[in-house]
């Protein structure tokens, strides 16, 4: 049970709703820490605002609960100041892709060695269930009472387009796969993004005929499809299914701090 060393056990039980996937994602993260043998005091764990943002209270490491959308910017400061430490950011779909969208694409562009986990429950849960950039079209939310007309981001395509060098997606209903993927992303040197599909039955599901955790997880299981299985299907068969797997891994591109170290050498070499 040594992964519990990475949990502030005196803060449990946590405040997430019964059946909320965030708890399982947190378990996958601390299992990954344990598998890699990272020391808690060498980890900076930084979160934004929202239900996902609350995770920093419960992780036993150097933690920060920052402002909405900005954990990546704080993390950039931490990583640049201490490139030898492990910097992990957990952010929700609204936090990372709406208000934090700018920081998302620039952290990816820089390829700075920060490990981002986006907990995508397709809603702004903490504030009562408003539409987010990943809410399925036609879904009812507090701010789309007649149905959502907006199309979604494809987080994987966005991350790859912005320059992230490790991009993957998994589901909270496949926690072992999620853990392995997170472990792999932690080992990657460069900007990594793992999108974890999660459930918010209380504030999203409830308005869309998925009013409890079991029903909503069944719905997620019906929508997900692993990459290798999806490859054999036609686009019509795939429809709007969510494809899971590792989509992009580039180990050649130099990481930001590596490049900046070269700058320091250059500057010091100059008169």
């Amino acid at each position: 049970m040594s992964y519990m060393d990475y949990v502030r056990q005196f803060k449990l039980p946590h405040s997430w709703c019964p059946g909320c996937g965030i708890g399982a994602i947190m378990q996958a993260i601390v299992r990954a820490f344990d598998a890699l043998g990272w020391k808690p005091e060498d980890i900076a764990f930084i979160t934004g605002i929202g239900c996902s943002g609350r995770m920093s209270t419960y992780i036993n490491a150097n933690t920060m609960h920052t402002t909405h959308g900005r954990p990546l910017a704080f993390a950039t400061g931490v990583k640049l100041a201490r490139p030898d430490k492990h910097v992990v950011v957990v952010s929700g779909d609204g936090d990372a892709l709406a208000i934090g969208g700018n920081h998302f694409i620039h952290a990816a562009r820089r390829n700075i060695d920060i490990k981002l986990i986006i907990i995508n429950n397709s809603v702004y849960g903490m504030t009562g269930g408003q539409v987010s950039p990943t809410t399925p079209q036609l879904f009812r939310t507090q701010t789309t009472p007649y149905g959502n007309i907006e199309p979604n981001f494809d987080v994987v395509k966005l991350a790859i387009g912005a320059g992230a060098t490790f991009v993957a997606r998994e589901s909270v209903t496949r926690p072992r796969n999620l853990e392995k993927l997170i472990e792999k992303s932690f080992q990657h040197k460069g900007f990594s993004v793992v999108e974890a599909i999660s459930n918010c039955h209380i504030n999203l599901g409830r308005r869309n005929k998925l009013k409890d955790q079991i029903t909503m997880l069944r719905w997620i299981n019906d929508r997900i499809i692993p990459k290798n299985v999806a490859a054999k299907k036609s686009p019509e068969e795939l429809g709007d299914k969510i494809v899971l797997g590792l989509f992009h891994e580039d180990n050649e591109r130099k990481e930001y701090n590596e490049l900046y170290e070269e700058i320091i050498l250059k500057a010091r070499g100059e008169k």
Partner: protein
Amino acid sequence: MSNVIEELNLEIRTRRKKPYNKGAKIIINPELCKSCALCVFVCPTGVLEMVENKRNIYNYSAEAVAPEYCTLCQFCVYQCPDFAIVVEKEEGGEK
């Protein structure tokens, strides 16, 4: 109990094909368990069910009613959002 939970329990019972008798000990921490039923839902062999529990605010909670079917796969442990369930082997203790 709600319809969903009753239906879940019925489905669970159909998962019990043959007992493995691995001497599994499934311990659920009542201080951390939020009765979400995810462990019941993911168990491939129907070890757990939601049972009535007047001491719980939801009036039901998860219980390992058929531990002989446990394969020690740990799916319930991985899925539990609350770190509330532990699965061990009788002698010594394995996690």
